[in-house]
């Protein structure tokens, strides 16, 4: 009974922790520009991360290998190094965007300058990491992210045309480059690789074995699946309110306006609070993903549970990445702009980190009887094809649309 409770709590934390600044920005913009037409792309991305996470978690539990161990072992030093460099750039940019996002939300809640909040946020994160146990950190941010359930409440309060909403789930390809750019963006924001790298390393930290495979599947399918409902909700509330008015949500604060409209100050505070937790959790996840990947690739000792004495290089690299993130967040570039680039670059680099995991997950000599079955194999390869197509289209679309500026 206690085991079921523990797993349920883990899933709840995964739901709350699903969104990050990329999702907040891209879903809101997608709704404002295209109303409900991109809902299918959100679902595509949500299923994608569930597939990637389930495979990575399974590989970690059965073979004891986190993602970058798989990458180095399967692709060798040269290609692995390319994957590491690409992944590190994306993770640091993401971290900077999340730190900036925390500062923006704090600025909306309290009266103090942005740059002060960036530094304060980083210090708070270090404190949380140092003081809370690893699982506690995930739960802390995950439960806090559940405040964004106010978005779901807002959907029902708005009571949109459900027929129109339903049609948004049917894939349609508009020929406009802006639409295609947002297909890529919304998908990529849902399928951010740092989240999966963090998840797989966490599985090793928690010493997962074959016994955790059910939990892994539930986390991936229920946790991320239900978390995706929040992303869907954001598209709907934004589409309902912003699209008819022609509002262009270029600011993070705009994300909360529909909730303010529906539930006044309470709705606003719940929305901002939820945003704070999900962006904060994402800052932790992306900073650790950067250190995990580096340490795993080079063979260093690593792990939050090892502590600074046993894993000094890992810990030092984490602090260096945090400092880089602070520097970029302070550089005056709008975090929303940083987000556009971090999300697009993430999908460009995604094939490099996805393919090795897919190959090992399907390899019986590593996975024994837990290798990909027919469904997992089909989904795994289908998504590899989708990812490659989007990765190739991403940068041309970014340039053609001026990062969604039109």
């Amino acid at each position, binding site marked *: 009974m206690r085991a079921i409770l523990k797993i349920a709590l883990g899933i709840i934390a995964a739901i709350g922790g699903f969104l990050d600044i990329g999702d907040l920005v891209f879903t809101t913009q997608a709704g404002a520009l295209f109303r409900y037409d991109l809902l299918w792309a959100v679902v595509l991305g949500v299923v994608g991360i569930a597939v990637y996470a389930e495979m990575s978690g399974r590989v970690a539990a059965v073979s*004891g290998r986190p993602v970058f161990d798989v990458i*180095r072992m399967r692709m060798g030093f*040269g290609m692995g190094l390319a994957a590491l460099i690409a992944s590190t750039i994306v993770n640091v940019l993401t971290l900077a965007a999340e730190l900036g996002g925390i500062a923006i939300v704090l600025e909306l809640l309290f009266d103090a300058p942005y740059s002060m909040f960036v530094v304060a946020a980083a210090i708070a994160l270090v404190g949380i990491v140092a003081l809370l146990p690893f699982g506690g950190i995930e739960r802390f941010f995950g439960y806090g992210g559940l405040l964004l359930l106010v978005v779901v409440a807002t959907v029902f309060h708005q009571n949109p045309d459900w027929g129109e909403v339903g049609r948004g789930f049917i894939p349609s390809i508009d020929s406009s480059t802006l639409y295609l750019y947002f297909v890529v963006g919304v998908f990529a924001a849902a399928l951010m690789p740092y989240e999966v790298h963090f998840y797989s390393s966490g599985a090793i930290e928690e010493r997962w074995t074959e016994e955790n495979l059910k939990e892994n599947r539930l986390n991936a399918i229920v946790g991320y699946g239900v978390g995706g409902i929040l992303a869907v909700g954001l598209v709907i509330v934004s589409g309902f309110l912003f699209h008819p008015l022609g509002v262009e949500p270029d600011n993070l604060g705009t994300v909360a306006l529909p909730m303010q409209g529906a539930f006044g100050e309470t709705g606003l505070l719940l929305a901002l609070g939820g945003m704070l937790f999900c962006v904060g959790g994402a800052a932790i996840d992306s900073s650790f993903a950067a250190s995990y990947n580096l340490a795993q690739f080079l*063979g*260093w000792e690593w792990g939050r549970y090892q502590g*600074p004495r046993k894993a000094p290089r890992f810990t*030092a690299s984490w602090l260096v990445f945090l400092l880089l993130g602070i520097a970029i967040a302070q550089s005056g570039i709008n975090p929303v702009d940083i987000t556009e680039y971090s999300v697009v670059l993430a999908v460009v680099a995604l094939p490099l980190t996805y393919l090795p995991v897919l190959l090992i997950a399907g390899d019986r000599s590593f996975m024994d009887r837990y290798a990909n079955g027919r469904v997992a194999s089909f989904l795994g390869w289908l998504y590899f094809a989708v990812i490659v197509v989007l990765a190739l289209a991403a940068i041309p679309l970014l340039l053609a649309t001026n990062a969604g500026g039109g």
Partner: protein
Amino acid sequence: MKAEGDIYVVHRLLDEQICDSEGKRVGRVDDIELSGDPPRITALLVGEGLYPRRLPRSLARLARRISGPEVWGKNALRIPWEEVDELTSTVKLRKKAEELGLGLGDDPDRWIVRRLPWN
């Protein structure tokens, strides 16, 4: 070991994580030493000095300038094959890291680590 058996192991052995007898992570198999006829694995090679070897020629020169020359005992270490205990998802060694001169990067007594505030 048959020749095919050797090559299969090399494919699975290269780039694997190395752990000492206590399970401490001490680097990856950056290169493998083969000697004799028929070729047999005689040692595992570990260290940043070996990275340029693993890169295509165009990048190798840049990498060599970054990692410096191979200095055996410092950025290139040799683990005799006899020290390998078992191969699972990691290469497990018979001895502790210190006895083989490994894991110095994460050794709390090293100078760079001593400078960190919590030491």
